[in-house]
């Protein structure tokens, strides 16, 4: 039930319902059980005592009854003895007979009376109903051998016999021998009535009363069916003990049943009265109480079960619902229906749960948007953002996709385990430095920055600038490095151009001082060259005059000079001189620093003027006719005027036109040559775009095009300073920007940006 994914050790869990059931059952049942046991124990004790006491009392009462019962015939016999002793000699045999008969007749218990003589022979017989036939049978019977008679003779006191079956009535009987001088009076007493007495005593009760004689023979018993029962109880320990020691109470097992019995003595014949009841019977109230308690326990259990079932259902149902909700929450489902719990605590829990879900949802939204913000921030950065996991085998992780643009490699190239290490693409000259910087940063726990050349997928090296910072874990060990890498190739190149331009500036400053000194000899060379060329001309009259006076055939001389290429050599001198002059002029351009010629200029007008100049420029016409080039202008309306040096801007534009026109003229195809000129404002800059449809140039050339002395033109066609001067004029003097972009075969575009407000430094 408990979905504890966070617990680190699996703990054995228990069902709430079972625990509740066990606990509640224990709390209700244990006191109940203790009470039950205590009560039952007490009751059992009490019942045993009660039963024992009751039994003993009964036994005594029965004993008393029996004694009283036997006392009547005993008294009769004693009276007879007294009569015998006092009146024996005065009574005739006949009278004696009658006295005996009447005595037997009047006593319901005495069956018969024998008078024995000294030898133990019956001399007189008293019988009820004057049964003379029977009397004659008894007469002269020898009874002296009877044990009780012998005892009576010896002890000279009355002795009871054992019980026997009467030959007269066939019923259980008993004899009492009473000695009277030379005679022995023996009374036979029927004790059959004792049995009925006992039976009458407990007709419905479960109590059994039994009378046993001295031998342990059962004389009478309240047990209805003595069949199959042993008629002798002498083996019963209770009986044995009672015979020896008097009254006793004990429990015993008889015929497979447990009995609780008490024994009382009947003194005169030495009998015992056993009153017993089965312990089943004796403990009946205890059992009834137990039954009561048992039902109480069962009811308690049932009620407990019911209570637990209902309660646990009310507790578990919401818990299960919470569990489901928590699971749904984990999946991001925050809009689960609310439950209606029974218990206030669970209701609070439900409210808290709902509150928690809301807060989590809010937090997740906040987190998501924050994460989104960070992700888009990282993603939009024009730099590689990375994380280098030092612990995980220096695994490189890119946080944005700029690396694709900057390195030209796709996502897996560096990050895959079998991929190419990033550092492998670093320029061999920079490699060791790169590795050392990184190691140093990790070792010294310091942020680092470095520059290196990186081989782009296109095979060209780019300059990267990297700034990184080691990040530490709790143990102050570097876990990873976070960093950014910028592509500073363009900036580097611009810096180089500026650096070179600045060099040129210093050279220019030097050249300005020397310009006069250089220009003069150049003038000497060029002028003389031209003069020589002119003086060799065979058509000029002055030359012909001098030739005539010196007797030289100019035509022949001409022919000779041509044959020996001397004229070309002269032209070569002239061209070289002119080129030298041009270089000096360009270098001097770097030295013109003053802004005194700056003024507000309407750029479209300035462009128009420059185009006019280009069309009329003599130099232009040497190789191509600018007038054959189509010019398409798109000038933005209301373009603000720009603060600039018009002559210098014209120089720049002219240079671009010249380069473009030259490039287009070198193309073999006969397409219409075209310049597209656009002007527009963007923020606080005004841009001029000049696009030709010439052959364009590869990127390698684009990158170097602004470098001083870089040229693709044939020797003599350009100094290689033109565009570097342009760049210098725009970037340095006007604080503007100048860029070139080109696709080979599709033309070249120059973009010049001039700030509206030039800083007046």
């Amino acid at each position, binding site marked *: 039930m408990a979905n504890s994914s966070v617990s680190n050790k699996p703990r054995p869990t228990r069902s709430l319902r079972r625990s509740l059931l066990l606990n509640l059952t224990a709390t209700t049942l244990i006191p109940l059980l203790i009470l039950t046991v205590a009560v039952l124990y007490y009751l059992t004790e009490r019942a045993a005592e009660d039963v024992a006491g009751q039994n003993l009392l009964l036994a005594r009462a029965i004993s008393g009854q029996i004694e009283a019962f036997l006392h009547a015939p005993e008294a009769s016999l004693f009276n007879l003895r007294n009569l015998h002793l006092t009146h024996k000699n005065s009574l005739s045999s006949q009278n004696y007979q009658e006295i005996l008969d009447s005595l037997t007749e009047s006593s319901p218990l005495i069956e018969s009376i024998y008078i024995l003589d000294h030898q133990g022979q019956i001399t007189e017989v008293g019988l009820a109903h004057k049964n003379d036939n029977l009397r004659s049978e008894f007469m002269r019977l020898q009874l002296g051998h009877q044990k009780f008679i012998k005892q009576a003779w010896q002890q000279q006191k009355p002795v009871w016999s054992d019980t026997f079956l009467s030959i007269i009535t066939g019923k259980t009987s008993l004899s009492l021998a009473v000695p009277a001088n030379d005679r022995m009076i023996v009374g036979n007493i029927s004790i059959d009535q004792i049995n009925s007495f006992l039976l009458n005593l407990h007709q419905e009760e479960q109590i059994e009363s039994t009378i046993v004689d001295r031998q342990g023979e059962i004389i009478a018993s309240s047990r209805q069916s003595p069949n199959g029962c042993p008629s002798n109880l002498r083996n019963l320990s209770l009986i044995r003990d009672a015979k020896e020691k008097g009254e006793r109470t004990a429990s015993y097992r008889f015929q497979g049943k447990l009995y609780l019995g008490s024994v009382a003595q009947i003194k005169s014949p030495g009998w015992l009265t056993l009153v017993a009841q089965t312990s089943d019977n004796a403990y009946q109230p205890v059992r009834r109480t137990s039954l009561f308690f048992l039902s109480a326990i069962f009811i308690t259990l049932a009620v407990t079960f019911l209570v637990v079932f209902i309660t646990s259902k009310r507790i578990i149902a919401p818990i299960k619902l919470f569990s489901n909700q928590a699971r749904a929450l984990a999946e991001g489902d925050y809009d689960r229906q609310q439950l209606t719990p029974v218990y206030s605590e669970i209701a609070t829990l439900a409210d808290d749960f709902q509150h928690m879900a809301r807060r989590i949802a809010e937090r997740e939204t906040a987190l998501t948007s924050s994460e989104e913000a960070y992700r888009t921030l990282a993603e939009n950065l024009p730099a590689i953002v990375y994380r280098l996991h030092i612990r995980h085998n220096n695994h490189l992780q890119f946080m944005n996709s700029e690396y694709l643009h900057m390195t030209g490699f796709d996502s897996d190239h560096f990050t895959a385990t079998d991929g190419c290490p990033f550092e492998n693409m670093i320029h061999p000259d920079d490699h060791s430095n790169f590795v050392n910087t990184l190691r140093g940063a990790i070792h010294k726990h310091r942020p680092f920055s470095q520059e290196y050349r990186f081989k782009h997928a296109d095979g060209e090296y780019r300059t990267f600038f990297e700034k990184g910072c080691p990040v530490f874990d709790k143990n102050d060990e570097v876990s990873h490095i976070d960093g950014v890498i910028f592509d500073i190739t363009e900036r580097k190149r611009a810096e180089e151009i500026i650096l070179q331009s600045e060099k040129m500036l210093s050279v220019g400053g030097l050249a300005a001082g020397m310009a*006069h000194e250089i*220009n003069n000899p150049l*003038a000497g060379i060029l002028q003389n060259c031209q003069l020589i060329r*002119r*003086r060799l001309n065979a058509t000029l009259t002055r030359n012909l005059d001098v030739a005539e006076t010196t007797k030289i055939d100019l035509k022949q001389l001409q022919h000779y000079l041509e044959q020996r290429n001397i004229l070309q050599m002269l032209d070569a001198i002239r061209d070289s*001189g002119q080129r030298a002059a041009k270089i000096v002029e360009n270098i001097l351009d770097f030295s013109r620093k003053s802004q005194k010629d700056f003024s507000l200029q309407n750029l479209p007008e300035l462009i128009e003027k420059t185009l006019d100049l280009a069309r009329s420029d003599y130099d232009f016409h040497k190789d191509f006719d600018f007038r054959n080039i189509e010019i398409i202008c798109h000038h933005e309306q209301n373009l603000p005027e720009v603060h600039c040096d018009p002559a210098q801007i014209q120089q720049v534009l002219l240079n671009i036109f010249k380069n473009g026109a030259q490039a287009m003229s070198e193309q073999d195809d006969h397409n219409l040559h075209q310049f597209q000129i656009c002007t527009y404002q963007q923020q606080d800059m005004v841009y001029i775009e000049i696009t030709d449809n010439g052959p364009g140039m590869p990127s390698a050339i684009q990158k170097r095009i602004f470098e001083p002395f870089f040229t693709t033109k044939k020797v003599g066609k350009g100094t290689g300073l033109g565009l570097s001067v342009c760049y210098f004029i725009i970037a340095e003097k006007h604080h503007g920007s100048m860029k070139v972009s080109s696709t080979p075969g599709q033309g070249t575009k120059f973009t010049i940006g001039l700030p509206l407000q030039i800083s007046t430094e």
Partner: protein
Amino acid sequence: MLRGYPLQRRVLVIDDEASIRESLTEFLEDFEFQVSAAASAEEALELLNEQPQDVVVADLRLPGMSGDTMIPLAHRLQPNLRFLIHTGSVGYHLSDELTRIGMQPDNVMFKPLSDMMVLVNNLENLLSQS
């Protein structure tokens, strides 16, 4: 050298650099100019003191007095005299004084001239104005 006919246009070339001075002299003579030459401003003024000239082609940086100092002096000597400046200096702008005596930016030529015909044309223009 002097042919001495009165209609010939007289040009005084002032330049301390012999190769320039002489080649220019020779070149202009081919175009029927009567050319005098001086290697310094002082020498030129001396020469102008003695004989009239139509045009002066003057360098600026000269051993003693500079060309632009000399021009106003020469103008005082011969008010009809015209001037062309042929200089190796870069970025030269006419001073107010020179503008006042009638000089124009066109009259300034920078060495080295890729074609001396430019100078010849300029001379012709200047002379045709008077």
